[in-house]
């Protein structure tokens, strides 16, 4: 039970990393990863390969699922010398990004350099993504209509 919990915590940490990496442009990830120094050698297990994911929506926004259309996705799986495997999935056709993300995911799972990855890669990229979302929200907020009521004269 305790072991399963630890695993799921590691899993959720990995999910956090993979989510941020998927949302980030390849050049930004590469720039952050450069701060980690030499990356370990990684054997390709699968890919990087481009394929499709059928994106689903919900009928009425909150009902049963339907197939909205496909999206181009790139995925990669790598194995480090010690045997740890890392996966990456992201929208787009950037193979170099997918491979690098898989290596980072494998390093994260291996554990030894997790703090480095957190500090050099995850934290700055997460902050950049949060800033993007916040900017969109602030720009949208500037287009929100402030209704005011005209006072009717007494006549």
């Amino acid at each position, binding site marked *: 039970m305790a072991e399963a919990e630890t695993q799921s915590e590691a*899993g*959720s940490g*990995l*999910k956090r990393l*993979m*989510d941020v990496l*998927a*949302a980030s442009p390849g050049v930004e990830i590469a720039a952050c990863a450069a701060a980690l120094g030499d990356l370990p050698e990684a054997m390709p297990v699968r890919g990087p*390969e*481009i*394929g*499709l*994911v*059928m*994106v*689903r*929506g*919900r*009928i*009425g*926004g*909150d*009902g*049963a*699922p*339907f*197939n*909205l*259309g*496909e*999206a*181009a*996705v790139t*995925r990669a*799986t790598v194995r480090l010398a010690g045997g740890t*495997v890392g*996966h990456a*999935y*992201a*929208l*787009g*056709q950037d193979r170099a990004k997918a491979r690098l993300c898989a290596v980072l995911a494998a390093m994260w799972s291996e554990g030894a350099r997790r703090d480095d990855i957190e500090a050099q890669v995850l934290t700055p990229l997460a902050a950049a993504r949060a800033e993007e*979302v*916040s*900017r*969109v*929200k*602030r*720009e*949208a*907020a*500037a*287009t*929100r*209509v402030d*209704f005011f009521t005209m006072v009717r004269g007494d006549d």
Partner: protein
Amino acid sequence: MYVAVKGGEAAIANAHKMLADRRRGDRSLPSITVEQLVEQLALAVDRVMAEASLYAPELAALAVKQARGDMIEAIFLLRAYRTTLPRFGASLPVETGDMVAERRVSATYKDLPGGQVLGPTFDYTHRLLDPALAGDETVAPAPARESEGEPLTRVSDILAQEDLIERAYSGDPAEMPQEPSGDLTREPMEFPMARDLRLQALARGDEGFLLALGYSTQRGYGRTHPFAGEIRIGEVEVEIDVPELGFAVSLGRIRVTECQMVNQFAGSAKLPPQFTRGYGLVFGQSERKAMAMALVDRSLRAGELGEDRVAPAQDEEFVISHADNVQATGFVEHLKLPHYVDFQAELDLVRRMRAEFEARQTRESDTQEAAE
């Protein structure tokens, strides 16, 4: 006699070189880049993605460039490309309620939570050509102000509080299907068609065709008394379950446009009077398409809601069979391909019928003369 003919290779090769030449145009001008198309003709790129049913902005932009701006040709190119790719799986349903919205407007409630957020709209512009845009003027960044962080409550949820609108799923929520009933890219179409499959077809359907059909319902051909309950445009997260990990990961965000139409409904023997819903969801920013889709979706529910099917927009087979512009252009444009043999046969037939017709006329006039 049928004679096999070959030839035309040189003509075809040169035609394609001529196409490349005309596509490039005046060489003294810089070649347009895919990045420029993605950034500056974003809505054209969005339309190609929506109707090709493939979300891939750079590839859609490349298709627009290759097709010289011919949208249906670009859609065709992207559709053809998608057939070369393996399918990794299906995403979890995107949650449009959690959208990072650039725009959200409602025509039914002025003061709904989250407010009327206009976003990057053409509405309220004067539709006057702007000569300044012909140059390369510096454009100021979009204004910003602190967001109040109020969630954008769905209009359907507001109405649902009073039970005045149908639920998205009419049965027991615990029994709501977790998978679509089929996939049009995998199985041939069959009628009658489940609503989820219709929505898949409409989401990739031709904008012009759906616009015309939606318009026809407003003009009285199958009236549905619609209100634009809500339109929202923005980015939603796409997540996929990864079996090798045991949890869902995000693939990133895609831009979509959603429209909830709210339609009058007098009720039936089984159902109380309440508002019904038409739904539109489209890749990219395309309010017109999402609204038209929602009108047509509602219209195609005529049978389910016990309404008379009297208009084209209520005829499922008619609408769904003709909504796909790649299919439509294929069949219309195939007419220009060699039909020499078919036409020879028709020509022969018309000649024979013509000879018989003339022979009959001569006979009749002979008989008439003889009678006189």
